[in-house]
C-alpha cells in the first residue's frame, strides 16, 4: 500500500457541504440559449405546445442545464490565470494535479422553465485507489437539486481524479 495522499483532516470532511444552498429560478431565455449552444433544438425546449404534448407542465430545460443555471455571478477579479474562479472551499490532498474524471447524473423529475431550484454541493467521497500509473485519489462532489415543491429533481456526481 502506498503512502496516503489524503490528509486526515480531508477524510473528516466527507459529507460536508462545500457550497450552497443556492436557489435560482429557471429562466426560459437562459435555458434556450444553452440548448442552442449545445445544438440541441428539441421542440420540448422551445415550443410550449410540444412540451405539453410530451407530458410536461410547460417548457422543459435540457437535462444537464440545471447545473449551469445555479452558477452565481462573480467578479472577474476573482479569476485565476487558468480562467477558473478561486474557490471558497478547498479540499487538501497531497497531489500535483486534479483532472476531471467524469460525471454521473440521475434525472428524477423534469426541470421546467419557471421552476425554483435549490442546489447544494457536498463532498460525497474521497478514496485512494491503486492505478496502473500508481496511487490516485477519486474525489466525488455530489450536487442535489430540489424544486419549489420540495422534490429532488436531479443529482450530479462530479468525479475528480487527483494524483
Amino acid at each position, binding site marked *: 500500500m502506498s503512502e496516503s495522499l489524503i490528509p486526515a483532516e480531508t477524510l473528516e470532511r466527507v459529507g460536508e457541504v462545500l457550497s450552497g444552498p443556492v436557489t435560482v429560478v429557471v429562466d426560459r431565455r437562459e435555458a434556450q440559449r444553452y440548448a442552442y449552444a449545445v445544438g440541441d433544438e428539441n421542440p420540448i425546449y422551445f415550443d410550449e405546445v410540444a412540451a405539453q404534448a410530451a407530458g410536461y407542465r410547460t417548457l422543459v430545460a435540457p437535462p444537464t442545464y440545471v447545473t449551469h443555471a445555479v452558477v452565481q455571478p462573480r467578479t472577474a477579479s476573482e479569476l485565476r490565470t487558468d480562467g*477558473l474562479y478561486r474557490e471558497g472551499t478547498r479540499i487538501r490532498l497531497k497531489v500535483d494535479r486534479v483532472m476531471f474524471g467524469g460525471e454521473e447524473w440521475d434525472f428524477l423529475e423534469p426541470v421546467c422553465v419557471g421552476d425554483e431550484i435549490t442546489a447544494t454541493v457536498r463532498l460525497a467521497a474521497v478514496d485512494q485507489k491503486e492505478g496502473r500509473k500508481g496511487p490516485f485519489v477519486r474525489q466525488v462532489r455530489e450536487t442535489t437539486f430540489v424544486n419549489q415543491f420540495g422534490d429532488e429533481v436531479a443529482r450530479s456526481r462530479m468525479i475528480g481524479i487527483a494524483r
Partner: protein
Amino acid sequence: MSTTTDVTAAAPNLATLEAGQELPTMHKFPDEAQLFLYSAASHNPHRIHYDREYARFEGHEDIIVHGPLQGAWLTQFVTDWAGPAARLLGVTWQNRASGLTGEELVFSGTVTSVDAETGIVELEIAEHTSDGRLLMPATARVRLPLSSE
C-alpha cells in the same frame, strides 16, 4: 456547429426493442464559435476552451471541447433517439480524452437491456473521433412510454 444523424427514424417501440440493437449514430462538428457560445451559456470562463496559447501551455494539443458539452451531446443523442414522450433517467460518462475543434465527433450506442413492464431501457453509449479515438465511454437509462400510454 451542425449536427447530423444517420437516420431520422421513428421513436423506438418497446414491443420490438431488444438488447443488442444499435442506435443511429449522431455526428457533431464543433468549431470555435460553438465553444465560445457554450462557455457563455454555461458560465464557464476556463481558459483552455478559448485561449489556444494557454491551452498549449497547459499541455493540450489545442483548445479543447468542454467535458459538460460532450456530456450534453450524450444526453441529446439519447433523447433524440428516444423521442419526446420518453424520460431520460440517468447518464454517466468518463472523460478519457479531449475533443478538439475541427474534428468530427461520432456518438454511437447499443441497447443493453429492455424491461417491457416498466419501459426502462439501458444503453451503452460512446463518443469517438471519426478516426476512432475514444473520448467518452458512457451509459444511459431511459424510460420509454408503455404502449397503453
